[in-house]
């Protein structure tokens, strides 16, 4: 309590050096710019004031999670608390610290985005900072460490074969690809969830539910229900990253007509109905 207050005061005054300021949770500017929705316990000063002051002293500033990166879920709907991120307000640069913020070494806020971020993304980012090896070119356009943000969730998804043939799940617990019907954005989402895995051998897709692109700014307001895919004339609106639309349509039509019965039948079942056939090479 008192010890915690003293320590924080020393961080503001500079008496205690701050190597890395890690912030979890959105920065709440409301009501009416006062920051009064989030006071730091034990005093009258709003949290955003503490963050501004300590950020100005810290060697590095790290946003842990999509809330402190861009505002995140707390900024959804009517954004009742006027929530934003440290250096972004949704997709727009700015946020609490402003677009021009740089730490003494020239780095912007490092956005370990994700809702939640994978624990390894946090520890590996902090390790790289401690090691002194994290440079501006290791961050992507949104300030996210490239070691996880330069992957797509689609990479390594066990449903890839279903995706290839557009053999789609129709209801939760089906084994097929979740892109066409159930809202999966794995082909556009920047993260290595299906390569690094969660809690041993998990990921959203391995758990049977859609990737909601939680590492991207604005994911909290997709403009449609999270678990359904918005379409125009039967074509999903969110196409895979870097894929021309005409090619997608042509390939989807072709692959649908070539779907093996095994893939088609298994896609809408919750367990394997047909196993891959076994071929003998020697007669």
């Amino acid at each position, binding site marked *: *309590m*008192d010890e*915690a*207050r003293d320590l924080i005061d020393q961080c503001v005054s500079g008496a205690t050096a701050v190597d890395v300021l890690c912030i979890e949770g959105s920065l*709440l500017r409301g*009501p*009416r710019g*006062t920051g*009064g*929705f*989030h*006071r*730091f*316990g*034990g*005093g009258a000063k709003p*949290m955003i004031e503490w963050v501004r002051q300590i950020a100005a002293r810290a060697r590095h500033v790290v946003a842990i999670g999509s809330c402190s990166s861009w505002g*995140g*879920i*707390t900024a*959804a*709907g*009517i*954004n*009742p*608390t006027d929530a934003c991120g440290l250096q972004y307000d949704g997709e727009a640069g700015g946020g609490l610290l402003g677009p021009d913020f740089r730490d003494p070494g020239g780095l912007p806020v490092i956005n370990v985005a994700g*809702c*939640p971020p994978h624990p390894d993304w946090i520890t590996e980012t902090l390790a790289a900072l401690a090691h002194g090896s994290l440079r501006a070119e290791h961050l992507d356009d949104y300030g996210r460490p490239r070691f996880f943000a330069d992957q797509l969730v689609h990479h390594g998804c066990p449903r890839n074969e279903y995706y290839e043939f557009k053999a789609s799940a129709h*209801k*939760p*617990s089906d*084994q097929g690809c979740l892109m066409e019907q159930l809202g999966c954005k794995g082909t556009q989402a920047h993260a290595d969830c299906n390569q690094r*895995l*969660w*809690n*041993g*051998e*998990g*990921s*959203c*897709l*391995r*758990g*049977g*539910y*859609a990737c*909601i692109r*939680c590492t991207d700014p604005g994911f909290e307001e997709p403009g449609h*229900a*999270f*678990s359904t895919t918005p379409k125009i004339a039967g074509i999903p609106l969110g196409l895979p990253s870097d894929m021309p639309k005409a090619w997608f349509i042509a390939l989807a039509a072709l692959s649908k007509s070539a779907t093996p019965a095994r893939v088609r039948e298994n896609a809408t079942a*919750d*367990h394997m109905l047909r196993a891959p056939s076994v071929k003998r090479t020697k007669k």
Partner: protein
Amino acid sequence: MSPESTRRIVGPFNRVEGDLEITLDIAEGRIAAAYVNSPLYRGFEQILQGKMPADALVLVPRICGICSVAQSAASALALADAAGIEPPKNGRLAANLTLATENLADHLTHFYLFFMPDFARADYAGRPWHAATVERFRATVGSAPNQVLPARARFMQMMGLLAGKWPHTLAVQPGGSTRPLQSSEIFRLHRTLREFREFLETVTFGARLDEVAVIAGRAQLDVWRARPGGGDLRAFLAIAEDLDLWHLGRGTDRFMSYGCYREEDRRLFPAGLWHGAASALDIAAIDEDITHAWYAAAGLPQHPATGSTLPVAEKDGAYSWCKAPRLAGQVVETGALARQVVAGHPLARDMIEGHGGSVAARVVARLLELALVLPAMERWLTELSPGEPWCITAPTAEETLGVGLIEAARGSLGHWITVRRGRIHNYQIIAPTTWNFSPRDAAGQPGALEQALAGLPASATKALPAAIHHVVRSFDPCMVCTVH
């Protein structure tokens, strides 16, 4: 505040999830009155308005990174209620397993990482158990945290298979689970449970779980403690006796549980109310009072099904963002102790006999649940049937209502949803810590923690005694859920 009392503001609290501040009026060396304040407002109930009902499953778990599955489970139940559906057996068992994994991990974390480190404080240097407690429980460097964290991480691998990931899964649906398990995966889950059982039996209890589960009262607990076997529970019981934690932190003597873990025709832990005797729980008698909370006064206390959440920056007499839920106008305590008292566990009932809830009783009840729930999880795993359905779907009606009541690690969690024209019209949440850490109500009745702190020794100027920490933490507060 009376003229001869001094006011002190205490906060922030470390090793508490979220923001907490307590104002103490101190007179004649004791706490004359405590005012518990949540200095953070988050606005989830406002965010949910106008959303598609199913989107609640994405939004509500994100209220909290530690009670995430509990929020999902309450939401899934509310949506199932609104749609008039019931998950198939596999879906129900998977939901039990997922919630139980989170609840048990929370109990373990609370005991080892949040609660016990307070006994390593310098305040206690000189007590016979202090040196051993410092070695074992000091935050981050003790031998216990370094043993518990890997064991917990290993146990949480249950979530990778059951729910894709933790926190913030979408596997828990109104119609069941999105994650069908195949038999080899079920064997892997058995293996993980077996490892966790071994950890608890060797490290935490120094005894088999079934030996702990059948301890039927304080006297038997003392006999059990005197037996060899070691383990951290025995170490805690020695401290509890030395510091008389059995008489510290009495709150209201009313204990409430919504009941949880649905089985074929019952719940593993039933719903109810205990106030010297058992009575049925009347959900219709729940109201939220906002007299002392920063919300626009809508007049009388409101039932959550028709409640509102309209924050105001200033309001006379208000001191918290936490509303004050009451059951038939009364303050109740919720949590593992309440759950086991309501369920009729003889040790839980005996621990509150005569002196009500206490720091020791709350802590022992949590560890008792580890011994009670893990065997149930082993049973649920054997009842799963791969090949049978895991999830059903049903369209939600355009106009409907639903309620979802479950027990999170910290106690009773309720979600109330109203759907109009196919969208969420109203969504109200009462979290466990909202009950336990509520401010005063219109009648001036202090909340459960406020009552538990009143009367403790405290000085107007000197460092506050560790007992205050023990009492606060004995409730295992989760402030981010409180002020959703």
